[in-house]
């Protein structure tokens, strides 16, 4: 569904490329987390998916369309919804439902159809009751859900979250993650850029980036075996994984699939 073919990207005036020779394929309805430290190129990668940035070398193909072709850009952006870090800086209008309507209005969708889309989008992020509220009265987590509703109203097939949880408090982050998982179950392809390793345990696949290169690309179960590579990339594995490893080192036989607190409890209890 998304294909990065030998993608290299260098910002103007930069000495080193932000992305170098990335090869990546993301399939339909996959939930992929992209993790990496500051400056690893993860956000740059995300901005390539909807053509906000165009590769210096190589090609990015989304739903069969190349991002470098300007005629495709509107159709690509309709298929790839993108949520950003700062919840305040991505809402355009004062009233919630008007903001959700912004995307379809840009596409020239008929007014009645926009109404239906807005109501559906608000329902699927659980914000129907706030339809006529002013956005500055909402919490960070709620604003982020409105931003996602605004994207859903475009009926995209891929949702890219560019560190969308970074500025949220723990409850806002949980709210957002739950929404994203629900959308994934409903068939959405998800690309989630994040610094929080705890958020990645429920994904299908984790891509670890360092210095513009992919250093690991596997299921969470496999990725968290390589604690050393994660540490080298300045990433801290989730606490449950650290606890698991600590228990292992003192002789408890715990399996690799122990990634969440629930699974940890399940395997530890019989051993006590």
């Amino acid at each position, binding site marked *: 569904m998304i294909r990065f073919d030998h993608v290299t990207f260098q910002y103007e005036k930069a000495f080193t490329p932000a992305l170098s020779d990335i090869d990546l394929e993301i399939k339909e309805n996959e939930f992929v987390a992209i993790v990496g430290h500051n400056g690893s190129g993860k956000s740059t990668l995300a901005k390539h998916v909807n053509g906000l940035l165009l590769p210096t070398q190589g090609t990015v193909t989304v739903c069969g369309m190349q991002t470098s072709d300007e005629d495709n850009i509107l159709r690509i*952006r309709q298929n790839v919804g*993108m949520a*950003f870090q700062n919840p305040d*800086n991505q809402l355009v*209008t*004062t009233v919630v439902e*008007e903001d959700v309507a912004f995307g379809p209005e*840009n596409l020239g969708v008929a007014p009645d159809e926009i109404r239906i889309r807005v109501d559906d989008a608000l329902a699927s992020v659980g914000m129907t009751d706030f339809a006529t509220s002013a956005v500055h009265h909402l919490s960070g987590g709620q604003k982020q859900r409105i*931003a996602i509703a605004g994207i859903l109203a475009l009926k995209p097939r891929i949702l890219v979250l560019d560190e969308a949880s970074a500025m949220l408090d723990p409850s806002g982050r949980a709210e957002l993650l739950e929404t994203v998982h629900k959308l994934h179950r409903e068939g959405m392809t998800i690309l989630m850029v994040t610094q929080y390793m705890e958020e990645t345990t429920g994904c299908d696949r984790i891509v670890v980036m360092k210095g513009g290169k992919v250093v690991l690309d596997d299921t969470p179960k496999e990725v968290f075996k390589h604690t050393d590579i994660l540490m080298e990339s300045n990433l801290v594995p989730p606490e449950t994984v650290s606890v698991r490893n600590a228990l292992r080192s003192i002789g408890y036989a715990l399996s690799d699939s122990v990634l969440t607190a629930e699974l940890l409890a399940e395997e530890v209890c019989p051993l006590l």
Partner: protein
Amino acid sequence: MRDITLGQYVAGNSVIHKLDPRTKIAMMILYIAMTFLVKDIWFLAIPFVYLVIELVLSGISLKYILNSLKPIRFLLILMFLLNLFFTKGENVWLDLGFWKLTDEAVLQSFFLSIRIVLLVAGASMLTLTTSPIALTDGLEKLLTPLKIFHFPAHELAMMMTIALRFVPTLMDESEKIRNAQMSRGADFESGNIFKRVKSMIPILIPLFVSSFRKADDLAIAMESRCYHGGDGRTRMHQLKFRKEDLFAILITLLFVAALIVILVLF
């Protein structure tokens, strides 16, 4: 602090509130024309009656109208006095040697003052009964025909929308910066006016920088949501011109016509 809005909209459900914003803008323009057509103090009664009817129908309390007049109170007093002193007339009421109080001067002073009060009160009726968003929509629609002269109607409306959206956000931001500077020992309260104005600089500069960053973020977010200018754009909320709107316009025109007839006859 976060709840201040541009203008002074008072939410309500009256006939006036429910009128199409375009109707209300047209009504205001006609009303202003009326007050300017009048050249005699007694005929100001016509726009006055019109304003009273609108006020009663809108259910807006007189207090808001009086509030909207507050900022111009000094201007009013000044205008009144100037006219009182410098209007020349024949019918002298009082002769102080260096200055004569005349019949004409008193009338002229009252006439101009009342006219300004009526103008400001009428304009406030528009902003009191129309939400800024509706006002923006209405302006965009009304200005759209000017596009043939390359007038950026959509861009202007979009700019107003974004400005309205970011007023509370920037208020929050300036409060945060202010607190941050105060915790570093900045003093905003003491000193004379120049000192205090100067002490605003450490708030304004970070606020400007952060606004630019916000603008950049917002532009990227808007592009990601397929924004490509006003061409081919539709709106979810369609403005509807209903029979109430037609009725309101007709009544306003009736007032204008009546005024013109009276002006011609007398």
